[in-house]
């Protein structure tokens, strides 16, 4: 039986914003309301939820970029926030916006990351080219500035950046959002391949029901900062008596996914 890679217990996060003309009014937005779940080593765990459900907040907490207000987070045996450095050495992240130095080339951006993680130039370049090739990226574009690349190409470089440092845990925050169908397929195929070949533990946030069903071993449905259902897609459908995840969501929340997306604003 595989061991636990991520253990999240009763995690809470509240954002406070000042509002009003004199900014005296403090408005509280509960991004996470006592989330509890576990991800096993080598598992692809999907977090499915509409915009503003708390997916990115959760990923930021797991990435050491945000401190939870309460609860307990343990990643690969290390507690947060006490062992941030150990966690950072073992976690790669891909966010929805491929954040890069846009004037620099893919090579330069990736080398910067490699040095930042203490890796050597030659190893890093070879590995980056290998990953990009597996993602279907043309190696001749390696020296092109990121600003001259399409959104799909940028996202592939973003994935290469996350994998460059051999992380046992990969956090993918909506990696296929906004991609053209071909790029989307290539990224999805790569995720499947990565899990099979490397045994990397993956947390994937998405609002694409098909993607969650196809890629994830288990899925947690998140809405308004709460995990309202969890299981394999078959279990979720069986428990809800539904034919697809869209129906599962509708039955669990009482409204469709699209309606939920319009309502919530916290992310």
């Amino acid at each position: 039986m595989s061991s636990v890679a991520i253990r999240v217990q009763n995690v809470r996060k509240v954002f406070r914003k000042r509002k009003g003309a004199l900014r005296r009014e403090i408005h509280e937005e509960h991004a996470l309301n006592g989330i509890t779940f576990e991800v096993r080593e080598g598992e692809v765990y999907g977090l499915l939820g509409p915009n503003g459900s708390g997916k990115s907040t959760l990923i930021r907490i797991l990435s050491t970029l945000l401190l939870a207000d309460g609860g307990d987070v343990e990643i690969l045996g290390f507690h947060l926030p006490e062992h941030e450095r150990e966690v950072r050495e073992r976690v790669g992240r891909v966010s929805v916006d491929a954040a890069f130095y846009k004037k620099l080339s893919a090579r330069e951006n990736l080398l910067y990351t490699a040095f930042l993680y203490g890796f050597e130039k030659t190893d890093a370049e070879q590995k980056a080219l290998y990953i990009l090739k597996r993602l279907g990226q043309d190696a001749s574009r390696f020296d092109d500035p990121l600003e001259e690349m399409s959104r799909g190409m940028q996202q592939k470089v973003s994935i290469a950046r996350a994998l460059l440092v051999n992380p046992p845990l990969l956090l993918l925050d909506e990696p296929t959002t906004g991609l053209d169908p071909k790029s989307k397929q290539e990224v999805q195929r790569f995720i499947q391949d990565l899990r099979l070949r490397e045994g990397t533990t993956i947390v994937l946030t998405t609002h694409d029901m098909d993607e969650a069903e196809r890629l994830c071993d288990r899925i947690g449905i998140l809405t308004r900062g709460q995990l309202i259902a969890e299981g394999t897609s078959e279990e979720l459908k069986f428990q809800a008596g539904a034919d697809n995840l869209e129906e599962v969501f509708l039955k669990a929340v009482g409204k469709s996914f699209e309606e939920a997306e319009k309502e919530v604003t916290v992310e």
Partner: protein
Amino acid sequence: MSASAIRQTWAFIYRDHQLTKRYWSWVVVFAFYALVNSASVALIGVAAHDTRLTLTLTIGVLLWTFLSVLFNEIAMSIAYERWEGTLEYTFMAPASRFVHLFGVSLYAMIYSIFRVVVVLAGLFVFIDLSFRGANLFGILIVLLVSSLAFMGLGLIAATLPVFSPERGAEATNILQGVLLLVSGIYYPVSVLPKWIQPVSWLSPATYALSACRKLTGIDTFVPGRPLHGAPLLAVMPDLARLLVMGVILIPVGLWIFGRVEHWAKKTGKLKRTG
């Protein structure tokens, strides 16, 4: 320092060097502006037919070019990352904040020296200058020691864009302006209103300038004769003050940065905005 920490330090030098190359036209524009500005100031001394004044102004512009670029590059490093949207990825890396800011500061120092060399070379075109007899080695020591204090100030200022990307950058410029005003870059501190003069004691630039002027030999300058720069021993009190400031300001800067980073992680301010 471990091999890994050296590579991590190199990461920031490598990144900033590549960015400098990509934004080369801005580098040229800023260097040109610095040169024109410096020449304009130094020519005031030429117009007054006063070599001592020319030397005073020249040393002022050169030192200020170095220190202001150093301070600005460190102070704006976080703002640049926010604009590029890469701040979260840098903060997620397993590099300590000391290594991060040390790498940024090292490149800032190299870049500042480059700017000073450009300005100095340009000044020779406009003004008949000679530093023969000046204690150039001593000046180099003063620049290195004063860099520590300015790095510390830069680290403190670098936290401002964490609070607010735009206002933080504005506040950084105000801080830089205050240093320019109170440090006696182009005039003696004694001409400032009495109430503001004590502020000059807090600026490392005040002591760096005082030391550099002595080492250049401006105070003992006799027209028509070569400069007679003071020995390093003569500026030991200024060097000691600069060293103490550096030793205090760098750890204080790192501590403040750590507190602000903690606050930003608590409030979600690291997220890309602006």
